[in-house]
C-alpha cells in the first residue's frame, strides 16, 4: 500500500486570545476556556488564505520528501474556504510550486474531513499505479460570524502530505476506512458567508457517532488494540471532544497530547486532524504506530493507521515543524482580528 513520503505544515503567526473575544461577546472567558478546552486561536494575515497556507505547507512537505516534484501526478486540496467558488485552489498551488502541468487536480469539500479524504484518493491512485506521487492538502481560514460561539475556535492553518510508494515512505499507510451518513449538524449554503450549526446536535449524533464508528471499524479491520498505538489523533473541533472520545476508547493522555494542537491554535477545520498528524510526525521515532480519525460535518470520518519507518527521523529537520509555527506568534486586538478576517476594511 501507499505511504507518506513527505509532510509539512503551516500556521499563520497571528493569534487572538479567548479573553479578547469573550470581552466583546460579554461572556465569561474562564467558562469558555474550560468549556471548549482552548486558550487562543490562529488568525490569518490579511493576505493569507487557503491557497497561501496550502502553498506554504506543500513547500515544507516537498522539502521533506526529497522527490523530483515534476513527478507529482495529482494535487488535491480539501477546504471549506477555497478563495474562489469557481476556480481551483489546487491549480494555483500547483503552479506556484512549479510542478509542471502533467497532474490531475481538483478541490474537495467535506467540511473538516475534505483534506483527509484526499490522502485516501491519492493512496488509491498510487496503489493503482495511475500516479507515482500525489499531493494531499487540508487547509482552511475558517469562517465564524462575529458574536457566534464558533468565533472562539474557528482558526487558520493547514498541512500537506506527499503520498507515494511505501518503499520510499516515512510512514506507511497500513489501513484506512471511512464511516459516512447524511447528518445535518453543520453547514454553509451557497452564497452564505458563515456556517450554521445545530448546537448540541453537533456532539453525540454527529462528531461522536462518526469518529467512534470509524475508529471502531479500523480497529476491527486491523485487529489492533488501542494500547498498541504510540500516538492517537482525533479531529479537534475544540479541546474537549477529542479527549472525550479518547476516554471512551481508553486512550491515554500521553497518546493524545502530541497531536492535540487545538488547545494552542484552535480548530483549523480541514487542517485540524492533519496538523495533528504533522505534529506527531515531527516528533515520532521509527516504527511507531499512529491512529488518526478525522471528522467532517454532514457527516463522515476517515480513519487511518500508519507506521513510521526508519526514514522518519532523517526528514524531520528538513522543514519548519508544527511547533515552530505554533510558537511563532503575535497577538491581535479584536478590531485587528475583524480586519484580518475581512469583516471590516
Amino acid at each position, binding site marked *: 500500500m501507499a505511504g507518506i513520503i513527505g509532510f509539512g505544515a503551516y500556521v499563520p503567526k497571528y493569534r487572538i486570545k479567548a479573553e479578547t473575544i469573550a470581552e466583546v461577546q460579554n*461572556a465569561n472567558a474562564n467558562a469558555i476556556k474550560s468549556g471548549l478546552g482552548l486558550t487562543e486561536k490562529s488568525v490569518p494575515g490579511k493576505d493569507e488564505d487557503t491557497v497561501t497556507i496550502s502553498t506554504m505547507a506543500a513547500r515544507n512537505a516537498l522539502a521533506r520528501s526529497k522527490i523530483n516534484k515534476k513527478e507529482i501526478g495529482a494535487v488535491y486540496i480539501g477546504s471549506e474556504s477555497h478563495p474562489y467558488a469557481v476556480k481551483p485552489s489546487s491549480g494555483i498551488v500547483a503552479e506556484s510550486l512549479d510542478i509542471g502541468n502533467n497532474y490531475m487536480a481538483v478541490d474537495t469539500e467535506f467540511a473538516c474531513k475534505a483534506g483527509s479524504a484526499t490522502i485516501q484518493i491519492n493512496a488509491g491512485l498510487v496503489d493503482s499505479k495511475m500516479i507515482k506521487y500525489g499531493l494531499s492538502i487540508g487547509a482552511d481560514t475558517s469562517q465564524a460570524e462575529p458574536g457566534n460561539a464558533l468565533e472562539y475556535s474557528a482558526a487558520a492553518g493547514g498541512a500537506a502530505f506527499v503520498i507515494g510508494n511505501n518503499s520510499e515512505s516515512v510512514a506507511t499507510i497500513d489501513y484506512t476506512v471511512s464511516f459516512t451518513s447524511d447528518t445535518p449538524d453543520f453547514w454553509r449554503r451557497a452564497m452564505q458567508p458563515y456556517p450554521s450549526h445545530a448546537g448540541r*446536535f453537533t456532539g453525540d449524533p454527529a462528531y461522536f457517532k462518526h469518529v467512534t464508528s470509524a475508529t471502531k471499524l479500523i480497529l476491527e479491520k486491523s485487529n489492533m488494540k488501542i494500547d498498541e498505538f504510540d500516538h492517537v489523533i482525533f479531529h479537534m473541533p475544540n479541546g474537549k471532544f477529542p479527549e472525550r472520545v479518547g476516554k471512551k476508547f481508553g486512550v491515554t493522555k500521553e497518546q493524545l497530547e502530541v497531536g492535540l494542537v487545538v488547545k494552542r491554535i484552535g480548530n483549523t477545520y480541514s487542517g485540524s486532524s492533519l496538523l495533528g498528524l504533522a505534529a506527531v510526525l515531527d516528533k515520532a521515532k521509527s516504527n511507531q504506530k499512529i491512529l488518526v480519525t478525522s471528522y467532517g460535518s454532514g457527516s463522515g470520518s476517515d480513519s487511518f493507521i500508519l507506521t513510521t519507518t526508519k526514514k522518519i527521523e532523517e526528514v524531520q529537520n528538513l522543514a519548519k515543524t508544527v511547533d515552530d509555527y505554533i510558537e511563532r506568534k503575535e497577538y491581535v486586538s479584536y478590531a485587528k482580528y475583524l480586519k484580518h478576517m475581512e469583516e471590516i476594511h
Partner: protein
Amino acid sequence: MKVGVLGIGITQFGEIWNKGLRELLLESQLAALNDAKLSPNQIDAIYTGNMASGSLSGQLHLGAMAAENLNLDKPSIRVEGACASGGLAIRQAVHAIESGQVDIAMVNGIEKMTDVDTGQVTTALMGAGDEEIEGFNGLTFPGLYALMANSYMNKFPNLTRDILAEVAVKNHFHGVRNSYCQFKKEITIDTVKNATMVANPLTLFDCSPITDGSATIILANEKVSKEMKTDVFITGSGLANDTLSLSRRKSLTEIPAGKKAAEIAYKQAGVTADKINFAEVHDCFTIAEIMATEALGFAKFGEAYKLYSNKETYFDGKIPINTSGGLKACGHPVGATGLKQAIEATMQLRGEAKDRQVKNAEVGVTHNVGGSGATAVVHVFRKVR
C-alpha cells in the same frame, strides 16, 4: 365530580433528536394505553394539547394525527391555550366525560421544539403574549417574567436573590429523582446566581428550557373507573383568564387567574389549601413558582419566601412542590407540560414516585399557566378508595 385516571404514558423529556412529532406522540399514546390495559378502539374521544407545532414543525391538524396514530376515526381535536394547552385539553376531556357524551377519553400533550434554533422558538413562544402590544415592541417571555420578578422583589424584598434561586435548586434536586426528566443534575444557589444573565434578575438557571416531549393520560367516567379499579380521580377543575398583555394587568406581583382557577377547582373538589399534600405548579421561571405557591393558597401574598428559605417545598417537606422537577429541571415541552403535571400527580397518588414519593399523598393539585398569566388551569387529584 369524579373523573378517573385509567392510564398514564410519557416519553423521555429532553433533546429527542431521533424522534419526530408523530413518533413522540405515538410513544406516549401507546404507553398510556398499555398502562390502562385498554385497546385503542375503547377510546371514545381524543384531546391533544399543543401550542406551536405549526411554527416549530410546520405541522398542524394534530387531532387527526392523534387519531390516525391509533387507526381510529373517533372525535379528535387539538386544544391550544399557549403553555396551558395541556391543562386545557384535560379540562375539555373532563367536560366531555361529565356531559355523558364520552365514557373514555385520551388526552395528549406534545411539543417538538429542538428542531429549530432558539430564536425561532423564542418568537413562537411569544405568540402566548400580546403580539401588538408586547411582541412587536421586542418583549420576550424572559423579559415579561423579569418585569414581574423585579416588581415582586421591590414590593416584597424578603424574596432575596438567594431564595429565588432556591426554587431552581429544589426543582433540580427533584429532577435527579425522576427518570424522564431533562436535567438530572443537582445545582447550588451559586450555580443559579452565576449563570449567564438572560433578563435581569433571571439567569439561565431561573428559566425553564426548550424541550421535546409527549405525555398522555386516559380519563373515564366514574362507572368505568370503578370497573377498571382505578383509585386516582380528578375531583375539581378550574379555569380562569386574564388580560393577554401584562401591561393591562392590575398587578405585576401576582397571577390572579391562577388564584381564581384554584378557587373554582377547590370548591368543586371540596378541599382547602391546607388539605392538599403536594402540588405540580407552572414554574416557567423561578418567580412564577413563587407566585403559583401564593395563588394556590400555600402562603399569603408576599410570604412564599418563608416556604423556600425553610426548604418546606421538598418532597418530604410541609408542602412538596414540583416533585417531577417542575418545568425547570424536568423540561417544558409546552403543550405536554399540563399532562406531565397530571402524570406526576397520578404517580404520587399511586405511590409510584420512588425516590421523590410524598408520604401519605391523598390530595394533589396541578397548576398550568398560559402566557404571563392570561390563562390558568387548576385540577385537583384525589385518591379515592
